[in-house]
């Protein structure tokens, strides 16, 4: 494996169901994502994009093939190993999934404290920086109920990025954002890739993002059908 590749899959297959209901949803996925790259995953509904995201994001057990993430083999990894690996990843979901009883600051602090017991003042400082990056310095002590949809999504972005993850998995992260906010978030992810080596794998239908991607993968019926590399 090329050590510069943060993701390297060989013949990754996946099935859902058992017995006669068993259905293959991914077919021989071969994928190599360089560290710091920004990759967009596209495809029609049901093409397997989410399954790829959940497998590479250590949220599902790999059933078949070789799947390496930051050099760790995911096929056969225990639940505890997958949990540990997830601590090095950032997730941005289509729905913000913020904790309703925690303020914006506290939600982002949760992204810091997952790896170790970080002193509270340091965790808060890191969270304040992350919230500043997404333009929410003046909303840190707001509960999610008092934030707009776009603001909530930006808090979720800050939570995903605050721990300096090796890789960010994002599912339609700009769907709830206006044009400027969406551009800011994508630029932020790109900048983190350049400055910190954070790799991004992003599922989207948002055409505004496509021209910013280093690579666009198109998935159909569980197979990668096209790979577009941008200079």
């Amino acid at each position: 494996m090329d050590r510069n590749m943060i993701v390297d899959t060989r013949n990754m297959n996946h099935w859902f169901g058992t017995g006669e209901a068993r259905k293959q949803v991914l077919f021989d996925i071969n994928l190599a994502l360089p560290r710091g790259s920004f990759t967009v995953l596209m495809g029609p509904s049901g093409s397997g994009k989410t399954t790829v995201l959940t497998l590479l994001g250590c949220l599902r057990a790999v059933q078949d093939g070789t799947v390496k993430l930051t050099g760790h083999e995911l096929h056969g990894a225990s639940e505890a190993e997958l949990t540990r690996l997830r601590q090095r990843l950032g997730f941005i979901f289509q729905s913000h999934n913020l904790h309703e009883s925690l303020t914006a600051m506290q939600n982002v602090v949760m992204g810091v404290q997952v790896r170790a017991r970080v002193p509270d003042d340091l965790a808060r400082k890191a969270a304040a920086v992350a919230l500043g990056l997404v333009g929410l310095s003046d909303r840190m002590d707001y509960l999610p109920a008092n934030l707009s949809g776009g603001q909530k999504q930006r808090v979720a972005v800050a939570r995903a990025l605050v721990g300096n993850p090796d890789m960010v998995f994002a599912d339609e992260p700009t769907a709830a954002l206006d044009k400027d906010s969406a551009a800011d978030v994508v630029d932020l992810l790109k900048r983190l890739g350049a400055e910190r080596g954070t790799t991004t794998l992003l599922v989207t239908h948002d055409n505004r993002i496509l021209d910013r991607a280093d690579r666009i993968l198109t998935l159909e019926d569980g197979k990668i059908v096209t790979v577009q590399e941008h200079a």
Partner: protein
Amino acid sequence: MTIVLQWLFGRLPIGWLQLTHKRGRFIAALSGVAFANVLVFVQLGIMNSMATATLKPYEFFNADIMISAPDANALAEGGNVARQWMLQALADPDVISGTGLFIAKAPLKRGDTDISLTTFGVDPGQPGFLAPLIAGDIAFLEVQHVAILDRLTRGIPRDEAAAIRPQSPFSFETQGRTLTAITTFAGGGGFGGDGYMFVSDQTFLSMFGARSSTAPNHILLRVQYGADVSAIVERLRGLISDKTLRIRSYADAAQEDLRYQQTRRPTGIIFGFGVLIGVLVGLVIVYQVLSADVADHLREYATFKAMGYGPRFFLGIIVEEALVLGILGFLPGLAVGAAILTLMGKVTTLPLAMTPGMAVTVFVGTVVFSVLSGVIATRRLAAADPADLF
């Protein structure tokens, strides 16, 4: 509170924040836990009261060994014992004295109130068999139809009872006799009667014509100072011809009476079940609250799972919630429970009160069962699958 808990857990007190986020639900949950605590406190209070009331009359006497009829499960229950066995017992070199104790219920009518007095007939010439609170006045009983009355008797106003003295006696009719109480002692109503009364054995026999001086309810024995009571009990069991008699140390007799009241009498069993029901109600309430809370926050928990938080983190949140509910629910439960017991004690004159032992026991039980409920509720966390978030 948030800062204290944050310092205590070394992380954000998510459980606390989650519980207090919806104030109405939080207060309802605390009320539920407090209600369960009150149930347990009241039942435990009654159980303790029964124990205190059962053991109370044993405190009136000063004996080492008690000989009773085979069916005498309690002090005021069972048949009689022939006085001749006392004479056999006195043949043991370590038994220094013996006396017969007569017990019966005597009714006392005051206006519309029927009062039941547990009446002890004792030999006034044997003050050594009585506890100091009675022994000092025992000489009064040398006079026929004189009584020493329990001033805490239910149905007799306290001020009236407290005013009873040799110069201001209290006369009353019972068992077809007129008795005169010329002094009092502090007993207290129990479950078997409203109060106690001491009379001489001769007065007792005149009140209860069917009773015989040769057959008291129990025989009390005193032994040499420093003698081994259990060894003497064993010897007496061999010495006394009637092998059906219950020959026990006085302390054992009291404890056997207590066990009988708690485990064989319906009242004891009912109060025991009451405690169990209270515990189960508390367990169910805390489980329901925590389980509903887990269900409400399943997406958030799934998000935390995706972020890399492990099972111990989630267990910590649920246990934190259980502790908050248990501890904060206990405090109002303690206050209300103490108030109810005090009120019930005043109304019934039963020895009902909140004791430090009860408070500590219920607190520990509340915390343990709350945590247990929390641990059970964590099983619902399995439904939080982070893969479903995408």
